[in-house]
């Protein structure tokens, strides 16, 4: 393929050796031990999509049950498990992991690195996440699925009112997924701060990457709250403590405060990556840089901050002081401002760009409509009187699905279509993609728009049936039709993906003529991501880099050598050797899982299982072979930044 006249200069990288160095062992061993961020992300994506389908099945069962009054399909006990497992699954096992999975795959590529920071920890996080999935679904199949609602309010979740293991299952599923989410968040933040391509200063970081950074920081500050809360809950249930026990000086509202201190930021944790995907796709298909880069980034960051000041608006019905309610009403309305700024930036980008309609872009158009409605009903709900009126009705169900499906699922499908060629090296079918979108969009609005009206007509959430004369029959029936359309849309997507994998047209490196670095390598990328890591001269390097932009040479190809750069301006700082494939993350995840599962039954499991956990973590840490320098000292004072060589340069072979 390569023209000998256009040969690269002789540099140290040996492509075959590089391939060998970064390759995983073949077969099952490689699958278990891999630390390649792309392989880990792929299994995250597949698992999260499977969770999406399972959660969708539960949702369909609920709609089926409610499609006519006094339906006897399911009883109240099973229905309680249905909606709790559906909500828990979608929030903890689908929405957060799937956006983090995209980050695991794309962030290292977008910043031009050879791997994600702390790849073993990311591998570990996947196994724990898988443990969380099993932790929810196996008990559900054994009729021990959680049945207290996805926010597991006390005192309902206390031992007195939930004497079965259902609440414990929920609490430890939280621990699994939150530890996994926190590990990924730290890995993504460090990747973005320290592994960026030379030249990618803070003001050149792609917006999708900014979105992942904001999400990761929010996870770091929000998820400890729910871990603390669920730990206290399980202690109350198992060790006879009294955190939420009003008779012994505890307080049930403490649970709500701790839970929503996490639970409200969770909404932004879920949709901030969504809006960042929108910015990316809008940029590419408008054929111009995004309008108001700084404004968009600041909107993401300020949403991240304001998101922590809203949690009490979930508690308006609990009788808090009026002044507090007013504050949280104001804060809840303020958060609409940064989102509004983003909307105007997208409009300006589209308006002044040369828009090219394509399958990913169509999903983004759907996002505009759905997410806008979700945002507007959010502003309505921020007002205390209206919130009290529709509290615990289907109006809230409609609002949250418009926000979460609009804010995340529509951009996600757009992203699947957008990055699919990069992931698989195959194109998807444009016609099938648009058909899938139309079905899903129509089905979504048919299913969820009537819920606004049902809520205003007084239909409460979480009821397993209703009387025929309530006036809710028609709309509930209509919603079942919507479910059928949505299901068809998802099936079309799966058919499209499947046939693309079987016989799709081969994708070029950059099928959409996009500007970010993941399109500068092959589709799919090699294990080492880039043969020669690029340097960056603008926000969209493939559009902005001048023809003589330097490439990075001099990374060793006989070890997993990765370039580390400075935080602010991404100047080269030092090289670091990355870990080889290893079995220890899996073993550590197994011993961690034993501890979590055991602690449902006895608090002593924490003590017993600490031993295998210690052994596996020591095995993980213990060096396998001496590295590059042996015991020789590094030139510690060495901070000289190599300058781009002036042409003609090239190293002697």
């Amino acid at each position, binding site marked *: 393929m390569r023209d000998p006249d*256009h040969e690269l200069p002789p540099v140290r990288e040996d492509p075959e050796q590089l391939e060998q160095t970064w390759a995983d062992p073949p077969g099952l061993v490689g699958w278990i031990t891999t630390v390649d961020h792309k392989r880990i992300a792929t299994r995250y994506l597949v698992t999260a999509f499977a969770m999406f389908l399972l959660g969708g099945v539960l949702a369909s069962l609920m709609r089926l049950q409610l499609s006519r009054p006094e339906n006897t399909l399911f009883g109240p006990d099973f229905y309680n498990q249905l909606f709790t497992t559906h909500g828990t699954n979608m929030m903890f096992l689908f929405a957060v992991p799937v956006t983090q999975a995209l980050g695991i795959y794309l962030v290292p590529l977008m910043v031009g690195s050879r791997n994600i920071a702390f790849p073993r920890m990311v591998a570990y996080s996947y196994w724990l996440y898988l443990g969380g999935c099993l932790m929810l679904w196996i008990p559900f199949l054994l009729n021990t699925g959680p049945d207290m609602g996805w926010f597991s309010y006390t005192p309902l979740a206390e031992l007195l009112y939930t004497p079965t293991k259902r609440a414990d299952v929920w609490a430890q599923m939280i621990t699994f997924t939150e530890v996994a989410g926190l590990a990924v968040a730290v890995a993504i933040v460090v990747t973005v701060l320290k592994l960026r391509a030379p030249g990618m200063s803070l003001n050149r970081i792609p917006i999708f990457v900014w979105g992942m950074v904001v999400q990761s920081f929010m996870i770091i500050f929000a998820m400890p709250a729910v871990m603390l809360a669920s730990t206290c809950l399980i202690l109350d249930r198992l060790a006879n403590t009294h955190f939420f026990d009003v008779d*012994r*000086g505890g307080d049930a509202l403490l649970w709500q405060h701790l839970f929503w201190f996490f639970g409200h930021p969770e909404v932004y944790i879920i949709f901030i990556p969504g809006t960042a995907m929108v910015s990316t796709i809008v940029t590419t298909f408008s054929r111009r840089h995004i309008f108001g880069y700084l404004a968009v980034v600041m909107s993401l960051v300020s949403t991240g901050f304001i998101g922590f000041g809203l949690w009490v608006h979930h508690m308006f019905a609990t009788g808090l002081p009026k002044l507090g309610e007013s504050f949280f009403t104001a804060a809840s309305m303020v958060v609409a401002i940064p989102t509004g700024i983003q909307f105007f930036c997208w409009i300006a980008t589209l308006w002044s760009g040369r828009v090219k309609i394509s399958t990913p872009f169509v999903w983004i158009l759907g996002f505009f409509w759905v997410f806008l409605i979700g945002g507007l009903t959010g502003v309505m709900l921020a007002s205390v009187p209206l919130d009290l009126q529709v509290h615990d009705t289907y109006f809230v169900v409609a609002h949250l699905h418009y926000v979460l499906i609009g804010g995340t699922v529509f951009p996600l499908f757009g992203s699947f279509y957008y990055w699919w060629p990069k992931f698989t090296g195959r194109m998807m079918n444009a016609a099938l993609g648009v058909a899938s979108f139309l079905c899903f969009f129509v089905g979504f609005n048919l299913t969820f728009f009537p819920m606004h009206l049902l809520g205003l007509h007084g239909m409460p959430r979480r009821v397993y049936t209703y009387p025929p004369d309530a006036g809710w029959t028609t709309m509930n029936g209509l919603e079942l039709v919507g479910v059928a359309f949505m299901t068809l849309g998802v099936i079309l997507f799966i058919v499209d993906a499947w046939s693309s994998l079987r016989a799709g047209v081969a994708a070029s490196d950059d099928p959409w003529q996009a500007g970010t670095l993941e399109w500068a390598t092959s589709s799919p990328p090699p294990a080492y991501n880039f*043969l020669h890591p690029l340097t960056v001269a603008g926000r969209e390097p493939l559009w902005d880099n001048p023809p003589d932009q330097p490439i990075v*040479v001099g990374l060793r190809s006989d070890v997993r050598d990765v370039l580390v750069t400075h935080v602010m301006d991404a100047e080269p700082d030092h090289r670091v050797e990355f870990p080889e494939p290893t079995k220890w993350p899996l073993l550590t995840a197994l011993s961690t899982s034993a501890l979590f599962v055991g602690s449902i039954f006895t608090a002593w499991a924490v003590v017993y299982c600490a031993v295998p956990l210690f052994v596996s973590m020591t095995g993980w840490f213990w060096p396998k072979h001496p590295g590059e320098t042996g015991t020789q000292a590094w030139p510690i004072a060495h901070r000289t930044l190599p300058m781009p060589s002036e042409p003609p340069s090239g190293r002697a072979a």
Partner: protein
Amino acid sequence: MTSRQSAVGSRQSAVVSRQSQSSVRTLDVSMLAPGGFGHRSLMWWGTLGLVLIEGTMFALAIGAYFYLRSRNTYWPPQNIAPPDLTWGTLNLLVLLASAVPNELAKKAAEHVDLRAVRVWLVVCLVFGLAFNLVRVFEFLHLNVTFSNDAYGSIVWLLLGLHTVHIATDVADTGVLTALMFIGPVEEKRFVDVQENAVYWYFVVFTWLPIYGVIYWAPRII
């Protein structure tokens, strides 16, 4: 291989075609050090992430303490004495004193001085074990059990959370000390020693507010 190279190849060949045929500008990083200390290293930032997570956890637990306090008329409840000051204060002194060998171990690591690192790591380990031992007596002198009421639960939770940290940090330090004696000792292990010291500082500093809350909040606030 060809298809994989084509990504970089085609892009760079475009570069080449506009210039003289045999050259691409390069940024040679082969002279850079194979590692870095302090905030230059990935580990430092990873440790910082852990500190943020754990710090948030402690802050929320302290918030829960004062929230529960605001919901109770008597704090501690009637007939329950505040925790005895002796052991907690002794532990405060031990922990503050441990900052000295900790700093010396950190400095030794930064100077890649294996002998000094070994000495000070062992001293740190002794301090850590002493601290965990005194902690047992602290638990015995809280004057309340976790199952008594919400006050007992939150006090035990605060002390328990901090104990998990000192226990794991002693385990970490033990493994690290063993490694520095057994080997293979590489330069990057000195970064680990340095990061271990940074994390120990975090554990020391979080004890100050938690000590204040457990021992002094029931007395003076």
